[in-house]
């Protein structure tokens, strides 16, 4: 049973990885507090690396990656590979924009909520389509994901009215008391709603996957569908449900881009975030908290890119600075994917014997 031995080694490596990421995050926090409260603030480079604006940017850049990675986790834990996150995100962004524009005359909050619902709905529809292709029509799941991406790119560009303008976006909600904590309060407790929601969803999903009946069944379906079937779990129903829910989360990530970050829709505005989210999911070993750490890491590289350009502290051409998130993703995937373990039944069509 070579596989078992491999799994235990994997777990050891994974434990170590977790430890490293906790240490890194703790160090980052320590530096951030030092730089933002002491005289170290005078150092341009330290400010670029650890300033409040860098940390704020990190969190903002991470939100779509967190939601995208959670979307991937939902699908893949039940055995459906989802490389279409990018497309679901783009479709969700367009849905949010379209309905935000339609309801511009409504009170801002109501209009934004309609946008959020639209993002969830459109994303969910794309997720359902992916499930339909993969389960009912037995399409190769990677091809189905590709179809979702091309379809979303085409249809959003086709329907996009370049003159439409969405008015207003979500503003920050300051959480009293907590927001007054120096540095941390400023970064964590003074954010717009979808950012909070994304962070809460990490916890919710962690509990749901590892401590509820639904989670146990989802994992059973993704690891050993025939065993799950034997004990009476409807394998494909779980896959439909999870993939649709996953699509909704990816749609919400798109909704974040339109309703919270940018305020408008642009063609192809997801710009690879769905793919980076996919990498975050793998890097995080299909665990919500792992994905959160990975998403923050990728978000940090994007923040760094932004801060470096703004501060003008380097003469490195901006293209090379912009490569940072992508290169880090490659290094992360190359360094870790061999050591993480995907759900065992992933990518395989499941049919009952009685068929």
């Amino acid at each position, binding site marked *: 049973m070579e596989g078992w031995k491999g799994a235990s080694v994997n777990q050891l490596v994974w434990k170590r990885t977790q430890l490293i990421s906790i240490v890194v995050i703790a160090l980052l926090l320590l530096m951030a507090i030092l730089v933002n409260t002491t005289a170290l603030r005078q150092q341009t480079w330290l400010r670029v690396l650890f300033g409040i604006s860098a940390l704020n940017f990190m969190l903002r850049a991470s939100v779509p990656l967190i939601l995208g990675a959670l979307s991937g986790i939902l699908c893949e834990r039940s055995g459906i590979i989802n490389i279409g996150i990018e497309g679901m995100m783009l479709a969700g962004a367009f849905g949010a924009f379209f309905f935000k524009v339609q309801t511009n005359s409504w009170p801002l909050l109501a209009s934004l909520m309609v946008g959020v619902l639209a993002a969830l709905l459109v994303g969910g529809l794309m997720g359902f389509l992916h499930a339909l292709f993969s389960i009912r029509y*037995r399409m190769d799941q990677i091809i189905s994901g590709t179809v979702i991406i*091309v379809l979303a790119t085409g249809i959003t560009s086709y329907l996009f009215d370049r003159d439409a303008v969405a008015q207003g976006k979500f503003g920050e909600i300051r959480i009293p008391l907590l927001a007054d904590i120096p540095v941390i309060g400023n970064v964590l407790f003074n954010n717009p709603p979808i950012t909070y929601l994304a962070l809460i969803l990490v916890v919710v999903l962690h509990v749901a996957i590892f401590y509820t009946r639904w989670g146990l069944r989802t994992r059973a379906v993704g690891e050993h569908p025939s065993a799950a079937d034997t004990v009476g779990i409807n394998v494909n129903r779980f896959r439909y449900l999870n993939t649709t829910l996953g699509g909704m989360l990816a749609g919400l990530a798109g909704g974040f881009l339109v309703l919270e970050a940018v305020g408008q829709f642009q063609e192809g505005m997801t710009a*690879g975030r769905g793919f980076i989210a996919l990498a975050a999911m793998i890097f995080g070993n299909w665990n919500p908290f792992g994905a959160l750490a990975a998403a923050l890491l990728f978000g940090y590289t994007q923040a760094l890119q932004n801060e470096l350009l703004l501060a003008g502290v380097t003469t490195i*051409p901006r*293209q090379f600075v912009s490569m940072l998130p992508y290169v880090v993703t*490659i290094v992360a995937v190359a360094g870790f994917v061999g050591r993480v373990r995907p759900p065992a039944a992933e990518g395989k069509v499941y049919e009952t014997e009685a068929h």
Partner: protein
Amino acid sequence: MRIFRSLLIPVLALLAALLTGAIVMLIFGDNPLKAYQGLFAGAFGDGRAWATTIRKMTPLILTGLSVAYAFKAGLLNIGASGQFIFGTVCSVAVGISMEGMPMLIHLPLAIGAGIVGGMFWGAIPGLLKVYTGAHEVIVTIMLNYVASLFAGWTVYAGGTQGQTPGPLWDPTAGAISETPDVLASAQIPWMFGPPYRVHWGVVLALLVAVLFWWLIYKSIFGFELRTVGQNIKAARYAGIAVNRTIILAMTIAGGLAGLAGAIETLGLNHKFAPEFSGAVGFDGITVALLGQTHPLGVVLAAFMFGALDGGASRMQFESGVAADIIQVIQALVLAFVAAPMIIRSIFRARWLSEAEGQATLTTGWGGN
């Protein structure tokens, strides 16, 4: 009979996709009849339309072959667009330098540079897959972004904060980011000159398709490649050097996409600017699947997509329907080809056997 049956699914898929596209247009208030008339006129209406179709088809043949080649080894090369761009940059670099070189040497050198550039960019995911287990899908996608940023830097016009301009930037272009024109000795000659503008690159692409067929189906290397793609365990057991085969497969796939970039630049654009994207690389996936990874199928699929792309702007001009609908149709073609069961249920074609043409490549994230 076999050829007839394998042609049937793509043709039915195209029909179904056009039908679905028409429904989408109807829902959103566009006139599909006028759109398709414009599309047809733009693709096949006159000599110029044919020239456009052939011009659009040429790089698609090669990127389609690139993706198909990787498929044969069980790999999904989403990186054809990055390899295309990297190849383009390399061939332009050679094409704008070495003044006074005779065409007989300069042109092959420039094309070769494109191939080598693409091979290099394709080898990276192959090596990473073999030695670290990194899935080629993610690595190639990330490399696409890196390639287009790198290419953007080579023609960068310089920054206001003392950033030096990129090495291939044309100083006479002022603030515009682009390379100078490729020297005449490195340009692929016209087969039919303007106004038709068809260059010899299309013949080269077709020759490569023949070579592809020989390599895959007639050579020992091709046999090993297909064995690895179909059953990696059996290939290992049979003593095939699986790792070497995977690295070579990605390298050659990259070379094919790089060649596409070289041909497109040396034959048509004659220079590189950041807005020349590698979208044809992404289309290569669809073309390869549509052509069921067979070189003849790829050529036919590239022709179909070339016609769709070629007719798109005329369609938009004549009917006012946004050209982006073509991408929707292309996605639908891919969906219908990848899931013949949908076609079966649309056309109620029970005689179409169930497993026919069903593409399977997923091995999951763990790879081998």
